Every structure is written in C-alpha cells, then in structure tokens.
C-alpha cells in the first residue's frame, strides 16, 4: 500500500513537473494573440474610417459627374439651342383661312370656301421687314381668284417711326386694317360698308409712316400716308351715267395723276380703351363703266372729283366683354365735265358690336348692328347680326351667325342669312 502511494506521488510529481512549464507557455501565447487581435481591431477601425471618408468622396464625385447618356442629351440640347439662335434674316409665315356654309333667304344653301390668306414675313435684323398677304378665293364658278392683299417693305427707323412703302391696308379706321381676318372678326361676315366695295377704303399703294408713342400717362398711335388714291366706277343705265362706287383698293398706277393723303390718330387713355379718328382727302376719277342697259358711250376727258373720307372708331374691353364701334363716310364730289359727268355721292356706314366670352366656357356670344347708306338704294342695308362662337383655341373658332337684314324689297340686301364658319388663324 505504501509503495503504491509512493508510486502515485511520484507520478503526480512527474506530471506536475511536466505540466507547469506548458501552462506558462500557454499564457504567453494568449497574450500575444490578444495583442494581435487588438491590433487588428484597431487597423479595422482605421480602415472603416478611411472607407467612410472614401464613400463621402465618391458621393461627392457622383453628385458632380454626369453620365455619358446625360452628356449626350446635354450635347443635343446645346446643339438645338444654338441653331437659328440669332440669324440676320428671319422667315416666317402666318395668315388665316376659313370655310363654311351659307344659307340666304331667297337662295339655295351652299358650302363656301371662304379664303386662304397666307402672310409672309421676311425680316432683316430689327431694321426691315417685308410683309405680304396673298388671298386665294374660290369663286362661284369654281375658278380660283388670287389677289395681293398687301405687299410692303417696312423700315423701322427708330422706336417711334416705321416707314412703309408698297401696297398696304388702309390705315383709316380699325376694321380694314386690323379686324377683317376671319379668325379675328367675331362674326362670319364683315359689317356692310366695311367689305371690299363699301364705304371704307380697303388698301392703298404709296408711302406711309406709322408708329406709337407715350403721351403722358396715355399712349397714342398714328399713321399718315400718301398714295395713288382710288378710282371711280360709273354706271350706265341706258340713258345716263350715275356714280356706282369707289374702287378704293391700292392701284398699281396713278392713272389720273391725283394723289390721296390721309391718316389715323389713335389714343389709348388706359389699357383696354382706344379712340381713333381718321381722315383722307384727294381726287378720284372715273375709270370704268358698269353697264346695266344699252351701250355706254366711251369715257373721255373725265374730271377729277373731290374725294374725302372721315371716320371715327372706338374699342373697349373689360375682361371677357368687348365693345367696339366704327363710323366711316366716303364722299365723292360732282363732275361737271367729261363724258360721265354726274352728281357726286357719299357712302357711309357705322356699326356697333358687343361680345362676351361666357366664364369658364369656350362659348362666346356676339351681336352687331350696322347701318350702311349709299347712293344706290338697292345696296342700302340695316343689319342686326347675332353670333354664337366656340373657341376651340384662341385662333381656331367655330361660328354660327344669323343676319337679320333690312334693305330694299327684292334686293339681296334684304335677305336674311345663316352663316356657319370655321376660321383658323395661323
């Protein structure tokens, strides 16, 4: 027993002596390992910090860098923006056209091709502009009629004056120069007397100065012109001559050598209101005969007659309501010599028009009263016109107009009419 105890003691002693150095060695390895881990943790933290800094930098770079696709799109926009940016010459076409249907009291209803009127603009810098309007119309027999409504070269001399040479719309009054295009005229017809053969001059060939200027707190505009003047048409009824009408569309030559002068002054006291006064004077001579019976004698030694025009106009607009009125009188003096010597005559007309665009709709109601008086009783006309328009857009307008006409019994001027029109301004 004692031997066995001794043996165990010896074994334990040997085991302990063997184990003790091993334990000491493990502690050292642990410490080293710990140091390494701590160092790695530190390095990892530093790397994380560096990575975060790098990520911030990357975001900044991304924010200030565009992709190839974006660069391509930008390039496209830059190229597009530089195209036609500031040429010396601009070319532009605008104008208007209309089509419709007309049904008069004593005539069959007809589809009508109103007019196609392209307007061309060629502009050199801010100095010159060539303006021209053509008018294409399909006549009753299907023939197409082409007319040069106007052709001018405008010189913008300064901010207040432009000189206009060529064939221009008559600056007398408002309707002929500003309101006759079908997309602007709120009814499907012109007021009697303000069309192509009425009291108001249509156009003139000559030289014109026009512009606008401030007048205290108000504004003013003006136009003065000198031109070839109108020619006169006389009617042969089989026994004698009677003055038939004034052909007041700009002539390519002054066949009687008598010029006409005229102009208009407009005053705008405040926005939306304008008053205008117009006048013209000169001489006019009979150059053509309208034969209604028999054979007319030839014109010879015709006397130049006095020609005078006077007009006033006013326009007022308040939000959706617009009111305008215009009066014009053209007077021709008597001729005592020449083959067609006859009394003079005067053509006068006035109209008042009111229109209202119903709020939150595209419907517009219009009414107009016109009284046209001429030397020919058959042409005299008093007219009430009522219209309902639909504005598909500001420049695309559908119109239904009813004219209640009062003229000489049996004359066309006495026939009431329905007019449907689609007008497009471009």
């Amino acid at each position, binding site marked *: 027993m004692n031997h066995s105890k001794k043996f165990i003691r010896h074994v334990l002693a040997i085991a302990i002596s063997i184990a003790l150095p091993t334990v000491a060695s493990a502690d050292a390895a642990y410490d080293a390992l710990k140091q390494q881990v701590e160092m790695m943790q530190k390095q990892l933290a530093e790397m994380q910090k560096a990575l975060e800094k790098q990520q911030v930098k990357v975001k900044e770079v991304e924010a200030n860098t565009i992709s190839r696709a974006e660069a391509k799109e930008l390039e496209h926009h830059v190229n597009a923006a530089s195209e036609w940016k500031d040429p010396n010459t601009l070319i*532009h076409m605008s104008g208007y056209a209309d089509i419709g249907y007309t049904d008069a009291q004593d005539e069959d209803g007809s589809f009508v091709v109103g007019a196609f009127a392209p307007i061309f603009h060629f502009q050199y810098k*801010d100095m010159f502009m060539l303006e021209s309007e053509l008018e294409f119309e399909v006549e009753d027999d299907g023939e197409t009629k082409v007319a040069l409504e106007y052709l001018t070269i405008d010189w913008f001399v300064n901010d207040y004056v432009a000189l206009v040479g060529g064939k221009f719309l008559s600056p007398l009054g408002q309707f002929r120069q500003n309101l006759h295009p079908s997309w602007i005229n709120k009814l499907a017809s012109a007021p009697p007397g303000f069309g192509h053969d009425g009291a108001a001059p249509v156009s003139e060939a000559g030289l014109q100065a026009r512009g606008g200027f401030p007048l205290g707190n108000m504004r003013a505009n003006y136009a003065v012109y000198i031109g070839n003047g109108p020619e006169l048409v006389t009617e042969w009824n089989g026994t004698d001559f009677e003055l038939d009408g004034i052909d007041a569309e700009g002539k390519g030559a002054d066949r009687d050598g008598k010029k006409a002068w005229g102009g208009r002054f407009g005053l705008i006291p405040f926005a939306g209101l304008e008053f205008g006064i117009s006048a013209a004077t000169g001489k006019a001579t009979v150059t053509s005969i309208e034969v209604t019976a028999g054979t007319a004698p030839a014109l010879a030694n015709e006397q130049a007659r006095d020609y005078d025009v006077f007009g006033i106009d006013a326009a007022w607009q308040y*939000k959706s309501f617009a009111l305008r009125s215009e009066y014009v009188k053209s007077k021709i003096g008597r001729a005592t010599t020449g083959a067609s010597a006859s009394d003079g005559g005067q053509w006068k007309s006035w109209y008042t028009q009111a229109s209202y665009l119903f709020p939150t709709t595209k419907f517009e109601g219009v009414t107009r009263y016109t009284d046209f008086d001429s030397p020919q009783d058959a042409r005299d006309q008093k007219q009430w016109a009522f219209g309902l328009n639909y504005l598909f857009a500001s420049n695309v307008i559908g119109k239904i107009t009813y004219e209640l006409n009062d003229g000489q019994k049996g004359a066309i001027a006495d026939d009431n009419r329905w007019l449907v029109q689609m007008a497009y301004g471009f």
Partner: protein
Amino acid sequence: MKTINNSSKALLATMLTVLAMAFSTTTQADGHAKPGDFTRGANVWRDNCGRCHNIRDARELRDDQWYSTAFHMRMRGGLTGQETRDVIAFLTSSNKPARKPIITDAKAPTASSKASKLSGKAVYNQTCIACHGADGKGTLPGAPDFSSAKGPLSQTDDILVKHVTDGFQSPGSPMAMPAKGGNTALTDADIRAVVKYLRSFSK
C-alpha cells in the same frame, strides 16, 4: 396750274412733322438697342393684344416666330420699338415647356432647393400680376378668380405648386398659363412662396 387745297396742306404738314420726328430722334431700332423686359412685356401683351383679337397662347410659336410676329404686330397695334422688345422678352420666355432637369436636384443641388430670396408678393407682382391682376380676380378672359376660396384655391398647395411649375389651363380658358408663369428664373421656393401669397386673396 395745279393747286393744293387746305386739307392737303394740313396732311402734308403732318407728314413732314412725322418725317422730321423720324429722323431727329436718336433711339435707333437696329441691333436690339435696349433689351426687352419680361414684366413690362407681360403688361404690353395684356394691354394690347386683346384689343383686336383673342390673346394667343405663348406656346403656339417658337422664339424666332414670335420675333417676326411681334414686329408684325408693332405695325398693326401701334407699338413702340421698346414695347415690341418687351413683349418679345415675355413671349420667348413664356413659350418654354416645363421640362424635367437633366441633372436632378439629388445629384447637384441647385437654386431650386434654396430658400426663396423673394416674398410671395414680390414674385406675384413680378410674374403673375399682368394676367391675374392686383386683386387676384384676373385681367384676361378665362383667368381664374383667386378671391374665392372655392375656386382653384380649394386645392392643396402641392397641386397649386405643380400647376404653377408645369403650366396649367383653367377649365373654359382659351389659353394656358405657361410653365412658371413664363418666368423660367423662378425657383421651387419662389413658387411655394407665391402659392402661399395667393391664399391671401381669399381671406
């Protein structure tokens, strides 16, 4: 011998006066003498175009088309050269479509995200007043009435901001308001400020 009557003398004198005026003034029209102004142009557009015809939407034409059109209307409407340049400035600014920026705010912060330097009233008086009026009731046919809380102002700020930003055509109006009222310089903050100001009309 040819004679000149009194009326002819008067007209001749008038023409000579105009011609003298034409060549005596030094304000030349060539070469864009003085630049146009957006706000003045908006007033010219509002005060003159509707006197004869329905006011056209600025978005109908490109810059070069508006340029020639404005000179054509200088002749028709009796505008001065300066008024013509002003209305060109307004129309060529107002015909720009609302377009998503190629470089978005998320990538490159722009002025849009900064606070407005102008009050809502200042923005309104600079950009909106020509068409919407000093009282917010509108000066043009079809312009909405901001004096009623039941009108467009019944909508949320976000919707109103979108309408101003992108442009908007009110029901029944023959034309649309251009994007940012035509003033492309407006920031998002300016638009929020002006929308806030619009609400003061209905109080």
